[in-house]
């Protein structure tokens, strides 16, 4: 039996949320981004801005060049997460099988429940209506309906904004023949270039290419490409209640300006390590592979990892290990720093500390976490890391931030 999958994609999500909150922004070209005169990029552009040619991931200076009267609105992640939670509640009314693909798009498997709501089209209409009534009239979504995730996503992308598109077996061929290769989720510019190099320019070219040729060029991904061209995607919906545990935690930061200064690098490294440690402990994990990635100003990279014989749970230990694997002398200016930890194990299965001092450290860490949970990140830290601690308080009240963040 064919599945029935809905893909709901919110249109210009962050920008629409801001326009919903502030009616004076409605009908105007706005973008949600970082500071306009920094290296930040556009996270979301409103429908009005998109009409002018401004796209997501465009740099802020580039966008300002296109539209000097563009309004830059700072992002408020908590606002968007709260609205996403509301969306999740709405989707849950129609099926328990909801997979959030990102903060603003979700797959719904309504194969078993569509009969309760007069069919999948009716469900899509009801979802659109519920969003308007329960969240706001300025938030719209595009819905794609099909028999697998790939085509449902394709359907929602084909009719924007506020669209509803159905891809069934009757119109599948005509849809596949009318789209570009990059319309598929999973084919970007790089893969398209490689395909063009092989003489593949259209979806029908891709469908005709033999599997062995694609496998030779793309490895295991070649099979996926072949399936894409034929509209085949057997991947199941992974509902939120059965999401697999994380494999790694990482944080990265792009510097406001390139730097050679090891002290700034240390500060950023400490901050990122603390954030990685906090997130890992929140999920009750410990890890033993620490990795660092540095991107230099010329876009070359340096990456190293270190496997330890013991598990780390504390941010300061992650920082020490991360610091030990980066080069002591930096010859190129650094643009971006990333710290991560992998090879995770639940803290319940970690070996108990042998020495009382180590046990005390764990107790201190959990006490610090409790205080930071209550009063905001970096409210309290170890005195030995005083120089690296970002004590400066920002306008955001109790949340403290490093000057460069």
């Amino acid at each position, binding site marked *: 039996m064919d599945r029935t999958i809905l893909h709901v994609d919110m249109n210009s999500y962050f920008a629409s949320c801001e326009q919903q909150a*502030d*009616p004076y922004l409605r009908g105007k070209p706005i973008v949600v981004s970082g500071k306009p005169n920094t290296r930040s990029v556009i996270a979301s552009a409103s429908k009005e801005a998109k009409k002018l040619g401004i796209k997501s991931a465009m740099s802020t200076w580039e966008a300002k060049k296109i539209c000097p009267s563009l309004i830059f609105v700072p992002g408020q992640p908590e606002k968007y997460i709260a609205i996403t939670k509301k969306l999740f509640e709405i989707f849950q009314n129609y099926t328990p099988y909801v997979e959030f693909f990102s903060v603003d798009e979700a797959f719904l498997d309504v194969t078993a429940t569509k009969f309760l709501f007069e069919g999948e089209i009716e469900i899509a209409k009801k979802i659109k209506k519920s969003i308007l009534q329960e969240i706001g009239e300025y938030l719209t979504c595009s819905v794609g309906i099909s028999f697998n995730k790939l085509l449902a996503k394709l359907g929602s992308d084909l009719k924007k904004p506020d669209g509803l598109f159905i891809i069934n077996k009757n119109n599948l061929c005509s849809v596949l023949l009318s789209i570009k290769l990059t319309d598929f989720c999973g084919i970007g510019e790089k893969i398209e270039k490689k395909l063009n190099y092989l003489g593949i320019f259209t979806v029908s070219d891709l469908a005709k290419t033999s599997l062995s040729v694609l496998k030779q060029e793309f490895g295991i991904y070649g099979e996926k490409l072949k399936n894409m061209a034929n509209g085949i995607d057997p991947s199941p919906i992974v509902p939120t209640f059965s999401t697999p545990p994380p494999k790694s935690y990482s944080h990265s930061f792009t510097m406001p300006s390139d730097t050679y200064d090891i002290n700034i690098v240390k500060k950023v490294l400490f901050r990122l390590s603390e954030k990685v440690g906090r997130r890992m402990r929140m999920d009750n994990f410990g890890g033993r592979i620490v990795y660092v990635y540095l991107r230099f100003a010329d876009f070359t990279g340096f990456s190293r990892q270190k496997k330890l014989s013991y598990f780390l749970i504390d941010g300061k230990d992650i920082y020490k290990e991360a610091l030990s694997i980066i080069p002591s002398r930096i010859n190129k200016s650094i643009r971006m720093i990333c710290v991560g930890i992998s090879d995770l194990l639940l803290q319940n299965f970690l070996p108990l500390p042998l020495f009382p001092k180590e046990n005390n450290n764990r107790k201190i860490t959990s006490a610090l976490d409790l205080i930071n949970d209550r009063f905001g990140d970096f409210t309290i830290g170890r005195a030995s890391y005083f120089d690296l601690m970002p004590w400066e308080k920002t306008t955001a009240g109790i949340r403290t931030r490093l000057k460069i963040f």
Partner: protein
Amino acid sequence: MTFGFCSDYYKIMGDAIEEIVNVKAYFYSGKIFPYLISYKQREIPIKKVNLFYKTTDGAQTVLNFSLMGNGATYNVVFYPLKLLWKLIEIKPI
């Protein structure tokens, strides 16, 4: 309510009013519906709630409303533990 940084957007808007005000609201079925703001001896009936969302301030949950009433738009922040409301008038661009 405080903003993360002063972008062009907030510069255009000008200085926001940040005052503690009284807000009358209905509470039912676990939800909160403000309908009147008392501010500087004036009563502003709330015509429409544009957006309602929850954020956190430390461990405390804070309720944020964007409201329209009396021909103006306001951001209202409610701290349930302190039973305290803060009001910011949003000015047109």
